[in-house]
C-alpha cells in the first residue's frame, strides 16, 4: 500500500538554523504515527512542509503517492486528503467569524448544501462532547478546551484521510491529556484516518502511536515501532527525552 505521507531528503534552513536536514520519513496509512523531539527540533516545520505551507530547500514530499504541488486545484485536492490541527487551536479559528460561518466554509469547499454540513457537524460535535450552542459563538466566547475541540471538529468535517495534530495535548491538564488522546484514537479507528501526532512529550507518542520518529536539531535520530523504540532507545537523546516525561507513561501503562 502507498504511504500516507512520504518525505524524502527534506532540507530547509532559516538563515543559520538547519530546521530540517536530510529528513526522510514514511508514514504508513491507517495507523497512528508519532513525531517526537525537544522544542525547536523541527517538528512543526516538518508538519508545515507536509501541508505545503512551507517550501523546502531540497527534498520531496508525497501525500498518498502524489507529490505536493502549488496551485489552487492541487490545494483543493489536498484539502480533502490532509487536515492539520495547529498547536494553538484557539488561534486557528478566525477571530471575527462565528463558528457556524467557519463550518459552513467547509461545506462550500466540499460543494455540499449547508443543511447537510450542519447535520454532519451535529454528529461530530456530539462525538467531541461539545454543546450545539458553540455553533453560534465567536471563538473568543468559548473556552480554550472547547476551541481545541472545535478546531478538531472543523478538520473532521472535511472527512480527511490524514490528520496531523501538532502538540494536541499542549497546555492541557495531565488528567485530560489521556482523554483527548483516546478520543483522537477512537475517531481515527472509526473513520480509518491516518493520524500523525507531534509532541515534545515522548509519553504522549508512546501512548497513542504505533510507529514514531525521534527528531533533534532538524534531523531524524531514530525511528521505528514504538514498543522496541522506547523500550531500548539506541540514542542517549531519546533516553533523556524519556526521562523528562515519565509520569504520563507510567500513568497510562495499564491502558
Amino acid at each position: 500500500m502507498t504511504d500516507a505521507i512520504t518525505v524524502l531528503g527534506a532540507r530547509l534552513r532559516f538563515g543559520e538554523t538547519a530546521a530540517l536536514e536530510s529528513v526522510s520519513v514514511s508514514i504508513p496509512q491507517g495507523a497512528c504515527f508519532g513525531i517526537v523531539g525537544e522544542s525547536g527540533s523541527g517538528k512543526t516545520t516538518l508538519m508545515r512542509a507536509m501541508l505545503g505551507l512551507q517550501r523546502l530547500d531540497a527534498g520531496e514530499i508525497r501525500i498518498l503517492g502524489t507529490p505536493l504541488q502549488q496551485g489552487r486545484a492541487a490545494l483543493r485536492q489536498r484539502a480533502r486528503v490532509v487536515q492539520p490541527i495547529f498547536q494553538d487551536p484557539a488561534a486557528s479559528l478566525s477571530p471575527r467569524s462565528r463558528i457556524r460561518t467557519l463550518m459552513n466554509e467547509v461545506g462550500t469547499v466540499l460543494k455540499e448544501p449547508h443543511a447537510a454540513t450542519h447535520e454532519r457537524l451535529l454528529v461530530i460535535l456530539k462525538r467531541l462532547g461539545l454543546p450545539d450552542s458553540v455553533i453560534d459563538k465567536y471563538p473568543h466566547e468559548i473556552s480554550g478546551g472547547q476551541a481545541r475541540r472545535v478546531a478538531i471538529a472543523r478538520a473532521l468535517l472535511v472527512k480527511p484521510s490524514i490528520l496531523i495534530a501538532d502538540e494536541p495535548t499542549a497546555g492541557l491538564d495531565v488528567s485530560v491529556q489521556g482523554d483527548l488522546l483516546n478520543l483522537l484514537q477512537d475517531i481515527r479507528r472509526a473513520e480509518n484516518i491516518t493520524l500523525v501526532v507531534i509532541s515534545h512529550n515522548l509519553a504522549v507518542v508512546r501512548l497513542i502511536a504505533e510507529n514514531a520518529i525521534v527528531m533533534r536539531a532538524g534531523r531524524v535520530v531514530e525511528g521505528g515501532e514504538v514498543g522496541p523504540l522506547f523500550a531500548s532507545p539506541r540514542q542517549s537523546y531519546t533516553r533523556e527525552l524519556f526521562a523528562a516525561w515519565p509520569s504520563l507513561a507510567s500513568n497510562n501503562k495499564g491502558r
Partner: protein
Amino acid sequence: MNEAMWALKRICSERDGRLGLTFTIAILAFALLGPLVSPDPNVLDIKARFAAPGLAHLLGTDNLGRDLLARTSVGTRYALTLAVLIVVISSVIGSLIGIVAGIAGGWVDRAVTAVFDIVNAFPPLILAFALIALYGKGSATFVLLVTVVFIPQFGRMARARARTLRNLSFIEAERMLAVHPVTIVVRHYLPNVAGPIIVLASMNLPVVIAFEASLSFLGFGVQPPKSSLGTLIKDGFVSINQSWWPTVTAALVLAVATLGATLLGEALRRVIDPKSAGAR
C-alpha cells in the same frame, strides 16, 4: 454595531474625545442645517455688498452680495463631502491593494511597494498640482486625483498587517481548507485589518480637509460658483480691506473642522489601536 457603541462610549470618557466629538457634531450641524436657515448661496444682491452680519444676513455678505452663512455652510458641506469621499475611496482601494500585495509576496509585492514609494516620494500638494495640470480641473477628477495621492498610506498599512496575518494559524487553517481566496480576503483579512485602517482614515480626514482647502485656495480645487472653505478664505482674502469677517469666519470653520476631526481621530486611535497611540 456593538463595537461602534463601545468605541463611542470610550471616546466620550476622555476630555479630548468629548471635545473632538463636540466640534465635529457642531461642524456637521453647521454644514447640514446652515443652508436651511439661509437664502440661496448664489443669489447676488449687489446693493448689499460687504454687508456686516445682521438680521438679513446672519454672517454678512461677500463682494457680490451673496449670503455668507449660506456660502460658508454649503462650502463646509462640500468640503466635508469631498474629504469623506476621498478618505473612504482611498482607504478601501488602498486596503485591497495592500492586502493583495501582502498575501501575494514576491514580485507583485515589490512592484506595489515600489509604486507606493514613488507616489509617497512627492509632496502631496506638488503631486496633486501635477496631476491636475495633466488631467484638468473639476470635482470628479479632483476626487480621483487626491484619492490617488492618499492610497499609498492605507496600502502600506494594510500590506504590513496582511503580511503578519498571512502567517497566523487561522489564515493558514483557511488556506488548508482550500477556502476561496476572495472569501479569505473579504472575511478573514479585511475585518482584521479594519481597526488600524479606520484609525488612519479618521486621522487623515482633517489632512484631506486642509489639503482640499489649500488646493481650492490656490484655485486648483472647487470651481466657481461653487464654494469650498478654501475658495471662501481666498475670496475673503482678496477683499480683506473692505471686510475681514468672510475670511475669518471661513478660517474659523476650517480650524474647528480640522481640530475636531484630529481630536476625534486621536481619541479613536487610543480606543481601537492603543499600541500605536503612544508611538507617534
